[in-house]
């Protein structure tokens, strides 16, 4: 039995764990890689990420996806109910592939004079992909009239897959276009809230002292004021003759006024915690400039937390816009947002046209998806905790 004498020939100063050599790939993994690894394990967050991306794609390609121009009206079809899209044609004796919807049969109630619609199985309105429809400019550059889906004959009977509004707008087209405003207002508002929050929170957390005290009072004030009445008040005070763009900007400013406080608190809290961290003291003792201490050592340490907090504040903005517009104090027609669409809903509409609630489903889906994503990001944000 020989003794392996060469086992301990490594000089004592070069002692390494011979048992558990860490995964070499993991060893050189940067923070971004680690966060992404953690996030990928989070199934709900990944689902949220996919849905969120889809929603933004919808917003970008709304013109193409929507069968109609969202502002086109067809008064003949006010409150027309959704049609079922048939994939298989079974109306004849044998069945056949083919996309079509059934046409409407209109009857007028002799007493109330209300128009009611019924699907007429005998009328087939053929539907095709990449159909020709109203002209639009893709990205404002390329003029085209190709839509993802639409009736094969643009001049024939219309197709309302999600029904029509009070004035005969195509609800589907309007929901798709509504994604533009509803999904972007969160981002624009966030950009403003972010700037305010990071600057004020950073000053407060890094420098402390008097600046901190003043900013803290300000944050406390904004947090103690009930947000919605304040929004309402501010939104109501907007001049009535402002155009859609002005209103849009004004509303984002109002939303960000409320939301920056959360971000400011996150930033401040992180700065305070980091100031006491040994590795920040070590960086200071390295003698490097303050700029670099903040930019290279402190900011990256909570950038992922910040991204998570930002993601989690988008849904609040979407909900706020929807509520404001619903109440008629936010955006107004002809601007199309989900909240504006929902403001069409009243008790009468609930009875006769419940599909007008569908933009609400879009809101819930968007908010859920972004919340899931944000939760996942928050959990994955610190990959160094064991």
């Amino acid at each position, binding site marked *: 039995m020989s003794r392996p004498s060469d086992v301990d020939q490594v000089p004592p100063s070069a002692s390494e764990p011979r048992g558990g050599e860490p995964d070499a790939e993991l060893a050189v993994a940067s923070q971004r890689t680690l966060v992404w690894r953690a996030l990928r394990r989070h199934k709900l967050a990944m689902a949220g990420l996919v849905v969120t991306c889809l929603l933004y794609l919808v917003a970008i390609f709304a013109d193409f996806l929507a069968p109609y121009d969202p502002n086109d009206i067809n008064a003949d079809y006010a409150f027309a109910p959704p049609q079922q899209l048939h994939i298989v044609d079974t109306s004849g004796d044998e069945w056949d592939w083919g996309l079509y919807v059934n046409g409407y049969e209109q009857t007028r109630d002799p007493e109330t004079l209300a128009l009611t619609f019924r699907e007429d199985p005998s009328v087939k309105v053929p539907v095709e992909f990449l159909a020709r429809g109203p002209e639009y400019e893709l990205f404002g550059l390329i003029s085209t009239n190709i839509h993802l889906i639409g009736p094969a004959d643009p001049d024939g009977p219309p197709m309302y897959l999600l029904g029509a509004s009070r004035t005969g707008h195509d609800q589907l087209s309007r929901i798709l276009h509504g994604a533009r405003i509803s999904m972007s207002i969160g981002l624009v508002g966030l950009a403003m809230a972010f700037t305010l929050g990071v600057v004020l929170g950073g000053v407060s957390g890094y420098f402390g002292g008097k600046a901190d005290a003043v900013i803290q009072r300000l944050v406390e004030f904004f947090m103690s004021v*009930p947000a919605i*009445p304040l929004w*309402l*008040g*501010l939104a*109501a005070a907007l*001049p009535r003759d402002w155009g859609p763009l002005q209103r849009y900007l004004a509303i984002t400013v109002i939303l960000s006024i409320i939301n920056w406080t959360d971000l400011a608190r996150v930033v401040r809290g992180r700065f305070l915690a980091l100031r006491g961290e040994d590795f920040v003291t070590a960086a200071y003792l390295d003698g490097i400039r303050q700029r670099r201490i903040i930019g290279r050592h402190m900011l990256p340490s909570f950038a992922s937390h910040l991204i998570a907090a930002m993601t989690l504040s988008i849904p609040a903005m979407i909900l706020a816009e929807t509520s404001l517009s619903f109440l008629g104090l936010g955006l107004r027609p002809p601007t199309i947002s989900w909240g504006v669409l929902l403001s069409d809903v009243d008790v009468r509409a609930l009875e006769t046209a419940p599909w007008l*609630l569908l933009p*609400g489903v879009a809101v819930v889906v968007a908010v859920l998806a972004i919340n899931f994503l944000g939760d996942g990001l928050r959990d994955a944000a610190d990959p160094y905790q064991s």
Partner: protein
Amino acid sequence: MLTFVVRRVALMIPTLVMISIVTFVIIQLPPGDFLTTYVTNLSAQGEQVDPAEVAALRARYGLDEPLPTQYLTWIWGIISDGDFGRSFEWNRPVSGMIADRLPLTIVFMAATVVFTWIIAFPIGLYSAIRQYSITDYVATTIGFLGLAIPNFLLALALMWVGLNVFGQSSVGGLFSPEYQDAAWNLGKVLDLMGHLWVPMVVLGTAGTAGLIRILRANLLDELRKPYVVAARARGMPEPRLLLRYPMRVALNPFVSTIGWVLPVLIGGEVIVSSVLSLETTGPLLLSSLRSQDMYLAGSIILLVSVMTVVGTLISDLLLAWLDPRIRHRLA
């Protein structure tokens, strides 16, 4: 403790002053002062406006003075004799209009807070103790949904359900028609109870969802604390251990609910009450905002903001009373 109370109350004053200034700014934001709007409105209705009356009002509210003076006049009017100004749309003193509706609003909100607690407490507790059970997943899902659905949408959805499932039921409103104008009696109270639950559910859902999430997260944190193991090692029975130790700490969010749920509730109340047409301050605020009846709107905003601040104060004091750590750190 006394120092803490005094200090906390003292800290509240600047916040109140700030709130009143912001409210005043909101009132002043729309072009023209309220008297010009008032005069325009009356003229539009073809009524004669007495210039002497206008001048008197102008003097009373100091509308020719610079803005800071106007602010002081306005705020002094509120503090000294509860004069919140006049609603030009209704041509009534604001204070009277608010007084009509405030009690019901407060009842509604208090009921909702209680409802939120009653629902959130057992669900949050169970969710944390049986983490990853079916119930936990259901509760978590409901929590997510509750936070994702805007109040008004839930109200609309409930109304739709009421219409389609229960027929033309009286979802909306707080009283049945026969009690609408009746004097208060037992029947009216019961009728109110019967109607209150729908708005309560609608308004309380977001808060309940948030509270469940917070309670669950806090409890899970506490359950892993060494003192829980230590108590278990002393042979403490499990249910008693749970209720006496982690629960006691995790209860803090319930107390602080008043602080953070109130702003949410007050905001939601405006929307929910409008959709469900309740006779609370919410719809009044909304209609006054729509018509830029700014004295009425501003006064309501001021009042609900003050209610929030006072609510936060109460919850902070309660928290200090309940949690010895806060009590001793701040004393």
